[in-house]
């Protein structure tokens, strides 16, 4: 593989890794938001 191709391959891999990281972060946000919605606003005042 030529050096230019190697660099291009590495650039694509880096961009894919960033995209996967962003997708995982978005998934974490989705689960966090859904958890808050499911628990409701008065979760801190529930009977123990």
């Amino acid at each position: 593989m030529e050096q230019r191709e190697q660099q291009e391959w590495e650039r694509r891999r880096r961009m894919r890794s960033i995209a996967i990281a962003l997708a995982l972060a978005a998934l974490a946000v989705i689960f966090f938001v859904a958890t808050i919605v499911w628990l409701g606003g008065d979760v801190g005042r529930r009977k123990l």
Partner: protein
Amino acid sequence: MANLGIETPALAPARLAGGSVGDFVALMKPRVMSLVVFTALTGMLLAPQGQHPALAVIALVCIAAGAGASGALNMWYDADIDALMQRTAARPIPRGRVTPEEALAFGAVLAVGSVTVLGVLVNWTAGGLLALTIAFYLFVYTMWLKRRTPQNIVIGGAAGAFPPMIGWAAMTGSASLEGVVLFLIIFLWTPPHFWALALYRARDYERAGVPMLPVVAGPEATRRQIVVYAALLVPLALVPAFMGFGGPAYAIGAIGLGAVFLALALQVWRVREGRAADRAARRLFGFSILYLFGLFAALLAERSLALWFG
């Protein structure tokens, strides 16, 4: 078998294993995905409002991801015929930008992820319908019908018709008659839409061995079927107005757009020779997208205004 020194795009070595982010976006068929999201959003807004807005947004993201999964899995399975057709030869797998294995893994992860998240976070009726849609598109349409019968897109069209029902189910946890009507509109819209395309791409489909109606039954039979489906679709599109979930703007839009749709279908039937016939088919294909978009946009706009102004 000797390849006579000719390297087909499908067999081109994927030297740069793994494509760019753009290649993976292309695998999800973003234009199809946008129509899926749009129709699903219409189903969501028409449903009785009971779902938290954040969960509605999550549901929409899951539906979009599910549509993307269907696209990627379809491109994985159909890579061989995509390479033979002018319309699809530039897709990421035939071009060697993404390997079939990568597309399969990407589609499978998206499919399982979107169904699981929708089911766990929103409700399992919507999650189940999304799973059914993806499975129907992959196993029934792509793997079973597409290469075997000219009725492929008639039956397979059900997969593209589910999104409004999924949207409704995401909001209510159940199916409804309104969702079924929206399903039927897309279901009856699909054959004339794809047959118009197949009329002027018949040689493409023939080369790939896909038994589309113009290839198997000929252009005459296809033109007749287009008119029959258009004649069924246009009155059906008025049902939302009669059932009350489409208002006056929708009724006027459905009548106007329906009249044009019928006129273009009749033009396809009448003009049968040369470039004029191709032009008529292209015109119907282009307008059919506008037609479906217009119907759902009218429903969406009316419902949004009603929700906004109470």
